[in-house]
């Protein structure tokens, strides 16, 4: 069980959250101009690093806000959480 610090509510158990996949995937400026392959890459292709990963979480059983977290996919350590619209924090 992860203890996830919601940027609004503070640390809560993982069961209160929903996972939202990779963060900072920008919607294409002009979706109609994309080829099928480019569109599929936007929709389905995500990074899969071993290490620090910026990802979206929703505190669905609490304040119901989406936020971003930097989580190490190998150790599950959460290095930072930040609110939507805030820049990705720099981690060493």
């Amino acid at each position, binding site marked *: 069980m992860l203890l996830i610090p919601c940027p609004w*509510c*503070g640390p*809560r158990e993982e069961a*209160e959250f929903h996972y939202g996949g990779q963060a900072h995937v920008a919607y294409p400026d002009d979706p109609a101009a994309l080829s099928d392959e480019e569109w599929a890459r936007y929709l389905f292709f995500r990074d899969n690093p071993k290490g620090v990963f910026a990802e979206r979480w929703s505190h669905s059983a*609490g304040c119901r806000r989406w936020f971003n977290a930097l989580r190490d996919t190998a150790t599950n350590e959460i290095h930072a959480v930040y609110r939507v619209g805030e820049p990705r924090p720099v981690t060493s």
Partner: protein
Amino acid sequence: MAERRSPAAAFAGRFAAASEGGALRLAELPFRTQLNLRVDPASPAARDLGDALGAPLPVEPCTAVTAGDVTVAWLGPDEWLVIAPPGHRPELLSKALGDRHGSVVDVSAQRTTLLVGGPRARDLLAHGCALDLHPSVFGPGRCAQTTLARAQVVLLPQADGVHVLVRSSFAAYLAEWLLDAATEYLR
């Protein structure tokens, strides 16, 4: 006029029996007025709504303010739950908001309130809630949206105990769970 029946009405007898020993006080507080309020906290509209309520909208997460018989609980950075005695009139707030950006929605029927009071209230809730409910960190003036026995709830510590706001359709389940978890505290 149609008969009005609260979601946990059928548990009144068992709640009263469980409260006899003095360790716990269980009861439903039915039909309380609940308004969902959404507005930009930095806007003049938020200030006017605070004036209408008698207290500024709390902006610190997981806090609540009480003015008279009305409690305003923080639900999110632009969302609050206004709780008032049964029959409170929501028009006053709609009027304060006017046609500005925001919303006041009567959600009184969405949740009912279960009172969990008495000296063992915190022990009882701890059976199904991961939060630290010690009065030093969770006394009056705080609120929390979390899960109790996997049911989504809003917890409001008040003078008479913790008010557990639970969705109407989960009220019977949570009442059964509370009575079951309370067994060890009853004589």
